[in-house]
């Protein structure tokens, strides 16, 4: 959660206690906040997919930005780079900046207060999502599908390598079988990435 604080309060002023509590009633109804929360969940899922160094580079650039316009300008620079920057992360940064402009009180809340604020609103958001997603494709569905695909590839690799060890009669056989499993895993991950890209095309 402190991760979201970074994007919302990147130019935080001196903290004053209990400011966030005042926002608890206002924020859940705000579509901008709901959009931010959706984006936060997507970004957290994506953060595990990009390398630590790349993520730190993005963080560094986001923290150094002092205004919404600057972040928006930076968005195109980052998207065009070879860092494989995930769109939701930047989208979240922009929404965070908009939210900060709309609710200046956010600037004076400390990370603990943000955690409390977001924790109180996440369960409500999940409930709303489950109602609306009955017939609609929910925001972040592509990411969920991608995660499931990658998880299946990883589990299949583990089961198949166990099978190679226990079912092949010799060490040489086990090594050949393991090589086949490794190549199959690469193909499987590639397939999942392709379907993710196709899914994103239709989502946008």
């Amino acid at each position, binding site marked *: 959660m402190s991760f979201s604080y970074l994007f919302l309060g990147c130019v935080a002023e001196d903290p004053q206690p209990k400011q966030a509590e005042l926002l608890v009633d206002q924020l859940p109804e705000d579509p901008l906040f709901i959009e931010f929360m959706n984006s936060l969940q997507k970004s957290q899922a994506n953060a595990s997919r990009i390398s630590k160094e790349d993520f730190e580079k993005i963080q560094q650039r986001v923290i150094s930005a002092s205004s919404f316009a600057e972040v928006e300008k930076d968005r195109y620079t980052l998207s065009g780079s070879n860092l494989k920057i995930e769109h939701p992360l930047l989208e979240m940064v922009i929404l965070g900046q908009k939210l900060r402009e709309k609710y200046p009180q956010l600037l004076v809340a400390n990370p603990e207060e943000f955690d409390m604020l977001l924790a109180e609103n996440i369960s409500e958001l999940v409930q709303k999502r489950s109602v609306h997603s009955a017939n609609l494709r929910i925001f972040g569905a592509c990411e969920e599908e991608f995660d499931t695909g990658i998880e299946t590839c990883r589990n299949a690799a583990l089961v198949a390598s166990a099978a190679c*060890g226990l079912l092949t009669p010799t060490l040489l056989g086990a090594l050949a079988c393991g090589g086949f499993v490794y190549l199959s895993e690469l193909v499987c991950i590639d397939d999942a990435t392709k379907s993710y890209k196709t899914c994103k095309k239709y989502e946008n």
Partner: protein
Amino acid sequence: MDTIKKWETYSIFLALAVAFAGFFFKSIPIALLIFTFGLFVQGYIFYLYKKIDLQQEYLKKKAGAVIGGILFIAFFLLKDGI
């Protein structure tokens, strides 16, 4: 011995079938089912070795394959974390 060789070949195909079920049919339950069946086949192969009193040879060959398998499991578990 020919029967043993035949079952061992069959067992290799079962190992490949586990990989196919997991990666190309995206079904872990089917992969596990084939894997379990493969373990029974291994039990039968061991029984055949034991019948001709060569169980030591079976265990010797198998130990190498199992070590290979464990190394692969460790590799697949750790490769994303490194």
